[in-house]
């Protein structure tokens, strides 16, 4: 069994999404900031009349951000069935045919950048490609974030009498 994955780079590292999750790849375009959104959400773009939220993977992985280059791309992926989300990556490399046998389960000890979001590790030639789990990237922290917002709001009401 072979699976196709879409490879991309962030810094010098190779990552990939499953091709079935990738809807399209576009050049970087103007992103409208949503001021009150969580940090890792860069903003929203207008893709032919559709409003699509954009995630900055660098920020997601806790890396420093980088001045956009001409190679930067937005990978539009499908998340939670019908929602589209754009992911900003440094560069899209190519579509890779990965054999099932080349895909290894993520070792539990991986803690590096994006470690929490790994679906599996793909070894091709001497390259290691991290196949990311889209659902995890977006869901987990969304919920974390929600919790944080809920907490801070609860707190506000408590502290307001003294302010």
């Amino acid at each position: 069994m072979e699976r196709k994955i879409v490879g991309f780079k962030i810094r010098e590292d190779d990552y990939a999404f499953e091709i079935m999750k990738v809807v399209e790849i576009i050049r970087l375009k103007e992103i409208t900031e949503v001021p009150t959104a969580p940090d890792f959400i860069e903003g929203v773009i207008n893709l032919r009349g559709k409003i699509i939220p954009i995630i900055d993977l660098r920020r997601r992985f806790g890396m420093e951000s980088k001045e956009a280059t001409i190679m930067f791309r937005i990978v539009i992926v499908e998340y939670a069935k019908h929602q589209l989300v754009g992911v900003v990556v440094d560069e899209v490399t190519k579509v890779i045919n990965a054999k099932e046998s080349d895909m290894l389960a993520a070792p539990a000890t991986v803690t590096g950048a994006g470690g929490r979001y790994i679906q599996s590790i793909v070894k091709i030639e001497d390259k290691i490609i991290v196949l990311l789990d889209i659902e995890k990237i977006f869901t987990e922290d969304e919920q974390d974030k929600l919790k944080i917002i809920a907490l801070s709001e609860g707190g506000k009401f408590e502290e307001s009498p003294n302010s």
Partner: protein
Amino acid sequence: MNTESYKEAFLEEAVENINNLNKALLNFEKNIEDLTPLNELFRAAHTLKGMSATMGYDKLAEFTHMLEDVMDRIRGGTLAPDIDIVNLLFRSIDVMQEFIDNIRNQNVDFAKGYKDIIIQIKAKSSAPAREIKTAAQPRQAVPAASLSGETDPLKTETGIIIEDLILNEAAAQGMKVYRIKVTIARTCAFKSVRAFMVSRNLSEKGEIVKSSPKAKDIEEGNFDNSFELGFVSKAPAQEIEQSISRIAEIEKADIEEVRAQKKEIKENLKHAENGDKEIIAAENEKKPSAISQSVRVNIEKLDSMMNLVGELVIAKIRLDQIARNKTYRDLASTVDEFDRIIDELQIEVTDVRMLPVSHIFDRYPRIVRDLSSQAGKLVEVEITGGDIEIDRTVLEEINEPILHLVRNCIAHGLETPEQRENAGKTKKGVIRLSARRDRNSVIIEVSDDGRGINLEKVRKKAIEKKLMPLDKLDTLTDDELVNLISIPGFSTAEKVDNVSGRGVGVDVVKTKVEAFGGIFRMENYQGEGMKSILKLPLTLAIIQALLVKAAGATYAIPVIHTIETVEFPSKDIKDIQARRVIILRGEVVPVLSLSELIGKGRQKESEIVNMVIIEARDKKIALTVDSVLGQQEIAIKSLGEFLKFAKGFSGVTILGDGSISLIVDIQALIESNLKMV
């Protein structure tokens, strides 16, 4: 149509019938001596029975059949109605509702406790209920002979009469006129659906010019098992026959061509022109009465239509902008024309989505009846303005909030009969539901004539919960004090009861109403009652908004929240108790910076500051912005599930140049910056 869409039609009709049952039973309860509402009850139960039997929901059919029996016996005088029976009937309606819910959600024909009710009713009526007849066996058997006699068009000449005028006109256009008698299987419970399908199929081939019985009656299923149509078409009889008999449950379609009597066509027309103008006019009025004047449309289709219109509006705005910069001949006038058409289209589509508020108002009398009897109170519901129309999405969204308010009226507002008598009021309390139009919004008010809100209690509670410092609490007006109730977690009811729970209602109501751009406010009349006021947008999809610049980006503020825009000299902004305010026509208005509210810090202000005066939390607030770009129609797009937790924005819109502008949710934005107010 597949079974799924049958099911949908069934569910919709079932819900209607259940509403009718509730209404009729409420009427009956008011005066148990008057048996007229029973006819309506009986009719609704009977329809429901037939429908469910055809759909194969035998348990529901059996259940409704039993009810029908009880009603029949009350009507016939063999069963004396009393309050127990009325209560049982009310509970039965609830069980039916449960049946319907279960059919919809789990596709099972079952409801908890339906057997129980059957047993109770049987005990009550102390006579064995009749066995249910199979599915849709006719209630009155029709002799076979009369059946065949009735449907043979060759033997009977009593069919509908098609006027010469129509015949001649058709002949002049090379069309044929048919008299069609459609016979629907007696076992069919969806006669109106079948009739509609007949009319739909026919209108593909020609025009229905007459019908017997009248189109409206056919549409509502008020005919035996056959109806007649006058039909003008170019198609041969055989083809028409095929197109009808394709439809399931159509027993037969007898088609007979009607020919004009041998007169000169011209002469006839002339004759018509001279003498029978009135008749012609009358005929013309009847003409468009093809069977179906209304069609049920799937809500999703309407939503997607609305979305498309929204996009069209955006494209229109872009085109406007392009046209303004270019000077092609005729472009401007074409764009104007285009504008007008889209405006009209938008109005039409919006209109299609409108529903009268009675759609939800009508549910309350029944609910109030149950809740008030539980609470040991006497309550009457008065409804005004039920015909005011509002977007169905808005309507659905406010059902729950209004229910909360009604519950509150019963639980907290209205007194017990004794308390009311002591206070010199009538024993029966009143809950008023009213709706009215106010320009681009609908105002819904829920009020009661109860004891009103005890301001002293509110004050105490506010102190207890440390909602605000004492000195500030003292400065609040009565109105402001009342509206403290809508702060999350605030409740003045001392005991928790099952009518209105923990009093979380009001803040839920407020949040909900504000979530779609509405305004919520309460008025208190100590000792005489209270009023909740919901100001709602007519539609959610396309709104008027003020575009402003702040922190380098463009934001849209819904006009419903704005009062005016002003230019104010920065030196006149005063600092009072570390808060910035302006004096606007003698009124002290706090100043907030939009840029600061969205976490971008306050921008340097020039000598003249642009301000938008907005209405938020019932107060005026002067919102400073970099500049005001103007008012414009915008189509609201959702930020999506993913960004729903981005506070302070209710959505986005796409501007003429393709860029995105966030729609500011003023209330939420201020709420998340509570300390600044």
